[in-house]
């Protein structure tokens, strides 16, 4: 589009119909704080970009994947061996899924430690927590879809944990599995959840999350509270920040491609429900800290079954974490805030240590 006359004509066409001028005005004034920790602002964008990769590669995989116990494993094998660049799509989908959860965690903790969840961004935090839970749901449901031995037994162990939840555990387990045990019915169910229910919910919450981010603007660091306006530096969102975001996304895409070529995901052997569980079955890495904690808990704690106690403790922890913007708000700063910083560091260390232990211990 080189001709300025035709550009303005085209612009006028859309402006008359979409009211682009107000959007252009909004974009022209949108800024991103510029300081030595500005890098954390990229974590959300990277997570979003990885989600876009997931959607694109997922749609391509969907063209060949067949979600039933009889055909799932064979169809993934077909994708990996016969479909042009099918191996690349599967590897990119798997790597990008793991990186997406990793960056979602990084994004969450960067928001936590910069106190970006405080007023007026409590709802942004809540929608983000929901998106993280949905992402983990994506990971859990997607892991079973190749219907291989490891996925089968890891799903069995994972859904067993759901069954240990007091009162609702048993019906929830049946609802999730579609039967008493992990069977072809579970695979069909997980497939439906993975490609229809979760994407639908995710689109709703990611829209809310992004609208809130745009409406409320990018959070400024706590240290800026008492700075005079002339000492605060900002980068225009359009085009500076969005172009930088794009450059980072390209580097991430190169990284995902390199991981896919050098560390492809194995398919393993087809799931056999009647075979004994192989040694060392573990859930995906982002569930490892919970899995390892449950293994360390004694069989009974204060008269409650150890596993139930652990799940209840995680539930309480998750609720507190979700509502942290309301516990650590603007009104009770300083001392309480330091407690939350300390708690955050302890949680990060705990997750790292237990994930490493879960990985290396039998």
């Amino acid at each position, binding site marked *: 589009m080189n001709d300025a006359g035709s550009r303005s004509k085209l612009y006028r066409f859309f402006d008359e119909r979409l009211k682009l001028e107000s959007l252009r005005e909004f974009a022209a004034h949108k800024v991103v704080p510029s300081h030595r920790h500005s890098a954390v602002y990229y974590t959300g964008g990277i997570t979003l970009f990885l989600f876009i990769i997931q959607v694109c590669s997922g749609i391509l995989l969907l063209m060949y994947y067949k979600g039933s116990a009889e055909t799932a494993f064979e169809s993934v094998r077909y994708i990996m061996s016969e479909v042009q660049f099918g191996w690349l799509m599967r590897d990119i989908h798997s790597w990008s899924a793991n990186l997406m959860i990793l960056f979602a965690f990084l994004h969450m903790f960067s928001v936590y430690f910069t106190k970006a969840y405080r007023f007026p961004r409590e709802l942004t935090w809540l929608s983000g927590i929901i998106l993280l839970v949905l992402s983990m749901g994506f990971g859990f449901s997607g892991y079973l879809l190749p219907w291989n031995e490891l996925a089968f037994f890891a799903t069995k162990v994972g859904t067993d944990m759901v069954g240990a939840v007091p009162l609702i555990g048993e019906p929830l387990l049946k609802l999730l599995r579609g039967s008493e045990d992990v069977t072809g019915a579970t695979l069909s169910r997980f497939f439906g959840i993975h490609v229809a229910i979760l994407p639908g919910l995710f689109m709703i919450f990611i829209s809310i999350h992004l609208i809130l981010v745009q409406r409320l603007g990018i959070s400024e660091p706590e240290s800026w509270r008492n700075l005079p306006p002339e000492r605060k530096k900002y980068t225009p969102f359009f*085009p*500076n920040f969005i*172009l930088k975001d794009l*450059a980072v996304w*390209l580097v991430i895409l*190169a990284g995902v*491609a390199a991981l896919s*070529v050098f560390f*492809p995901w194995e*398919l393993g052997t087809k799931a056999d429900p009647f075979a004994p569980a192989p040694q060392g079955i573990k859930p995906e890495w982002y569930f490892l800290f919970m899995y390892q904690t449950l293994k360390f808990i004694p069989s009974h704690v204060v008269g409650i079954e150890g596993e139930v106690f652990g799940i209840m403790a995680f539930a309480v922890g998750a609720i507190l974490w979700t509502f942290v913007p309301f516990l650590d708000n603007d009104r009770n700063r300083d001392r309480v805030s330091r407690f939350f910083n300390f708690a955050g560091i302890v949680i990060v260390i705990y997750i790292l240590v237990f994930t490493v232990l879960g990985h290396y211990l039998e």
Partner: protein
Amino acid sequence: MQAYKYTHPLLISIILVLVGNSTRLPAQEIQSTCIECHGLLEDEMKAPVDSFANDVHNRPGLGCVGCHGGDNTSDDMLESMSEAKGFIGTPGALAIPELCSKCHADPSYMKTFNPGLPTDQYSKYLTSVHGQKNEEGDTMVAHCSSCHSAHGIRPARNPLSSVYDKNISATCASCHNDSSYMAPYDIPTDQVEDYRKSVHGAALLEDDDLGAPACNDCHGNHGAIPPDAESIDKVCGLCHNNNMVDFEKSTHADYFSVLESPACETCHSNHLIEAPGTEMLSGEEPVCGQCHFEDDGTGALEAAKLMASRIDSLENAIAEAEGRLEEADQKGLFVNNGLFVLKDARQRAFKARTAVHTFQADSVVNMTAAGFEQVAEARNIARELLDNYVFRRKGLAISVVVLLILAVAIWVKVKRIESRQKH
């Protein structure tokens, strides 16, 4: 064969009376006076009590009196072990088979305990060499308790049983490996040692493969007879069915029959059966050379060498293709399709080994020809995968360079925009 040497009954009676008097229990508390009294004795008089604790017959209604007779409710030894109460003492070797058969040959009685247990053991035993000699009055040959023990009888599936698959060779060896004991019978005593060195013995005893044959799988158990020249192929053919079918169709079947040579044993031996290999056909001392010689007009040795060479070539080609696929696998490529094809090729090689028993070189050549085609297919798959690996690397390198150039270009553009904004 273990002979039972009991002390004179009078001496036992005296001991039991002495002990019995001092430990007499009220009648209502006594479960079995046999157990009560023998449990207080020592060594071989007490041994049956200890063994019987784990015996399959140790259950209400059976017990000591089931075999020995007598009255196990009476605490008076003279009464409990009286002939009037049916006490028979220690049954002799000649009496044991018939004694056991009273229950074990009665289907309606055995049904009440174990409906799945056969009841033809005794009738089979009478057809065996052991049974026939026992009938003739030979007390040295095996009878029921020689193999099953007397008081510690466990079901054959129990790993502690003397007739459990892995224990049978030791049980048979207790007599058949004893040259002095076996001297009167003029048969070899190295069978069990040979068996343990054989491919069957190694599979069962070292690799715990319970599907591998023990002594009784070829010789039968209760109806144990040594297979003769005509029946040996039937015995081997029970497991090695395809080999037997090929052999029976071959010209060798007729010749072996005329020469009264045992079918399988002539080439594979009997107890010391080694893992068969192509060296049997083309080694320094091929088994074919036992009957055939160079230029004997049959072309047998040449055919044997051709068969061996085709099988060896196919197996080497499979190993080579497997190595190529392994190389691709280590590079993270998806090699399952190649492995599937190789699985078929391996099956062909296996069938070619079986086809040796037709003694027709053409059969082996045809079988291996299909295998070579599959190996070629697997090698193609491996080559394509390895080419693809190079393609992936190149593709990745180009993509990464393009992506990074784009990223740098964007970054430079941003810097220019920022510099323009400052001015």
